[in-house]
């Protein structure tokens, strides 16, 4: 089951950097046990929340990209739920969307190549034409 998920979560703004690192390390250690791999960890920094969450106006955003099946996500979400400093989280499956994007990109690249090929032979043609007035 190779699926890619994106877990975004918000921790309370008064959390120290080392505590945050510890929390992330804990989450990372959970994933392999449940049959998944952590692809990417991104600390997106402190940001103002669009609305108050548990009486907090700010939060530190963290993004986790995980590859694996349902059990890994289930375990991660459970951990996030019971971890007190985490005030909100969201899991999004991204592999299908990524597949679609790759397809679109491939299609566009192919189209670009087709449009570039006729343009290439067309370019040398005007070059002699501009030369002739120079020699005359």
């Amino acid at each position: 089951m190779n699926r890619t998920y994106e877990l975004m979560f918000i921790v309370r703004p008064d959390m120290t950097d080392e505590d945050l690192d510890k929390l992330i390390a804990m989450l990372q250690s959970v994933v392999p046990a449940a049959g998944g791999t952590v692809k990417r960890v991104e600390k997106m920094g402190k940001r103002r929340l669009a609305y108050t969450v548990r009486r907090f106006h700010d939060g530190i955003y963290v993004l986790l990209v995980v590859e694996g099946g349902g059990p890994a996500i289930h375990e991660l979400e459970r951990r996030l739920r019971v971890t007190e400093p985490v005030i909100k989280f969201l899991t999004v499956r991204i592999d299908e969307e990524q597949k679609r994007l790759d397809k679109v990109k491939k299609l566009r690249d192919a189209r670009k190549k087709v449009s570039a090929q006729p343009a290439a032979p067309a370019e040398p043609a005007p070059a002699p034409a501009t030369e002739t007035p120079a020699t005359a």
Partner: protein
Amino acid sequence: MAEETKATAPAGERPAGEERRPSSDRPGGDRPRFGGGRGPGGPPREGGRKFFRRKKVCKFCVERIEDINYKDYRLLGQFVAESGKIVPRRLTGVCAPHQHRLSSAIKQARNIALLPFAGRAS
């Protein structure tokens, strides 16, 4: 007679110029306000165009933005009214497939507090 039609021409054009201004910064909060600069452009004259309406095009098609992601709250914010509502596509000109992706992305962003459910982000 000819003079009159000439005189009406600039009058008809002026609202068009006025209208272009808000639409150029369309990403702003101008759009949701109904008839902000658009309204009936001046008194309707018979014969000429009653008011000029700019052809709306899908931003995502024009700029080739295929990835409508919930993390890109700045982009999504352009399609959210002051009140926090998703702006209907008859006002923004977004095409149906993109509006579909857009609305789901906005809803995801709301869930993770990147965009407000209601009201301005304070």
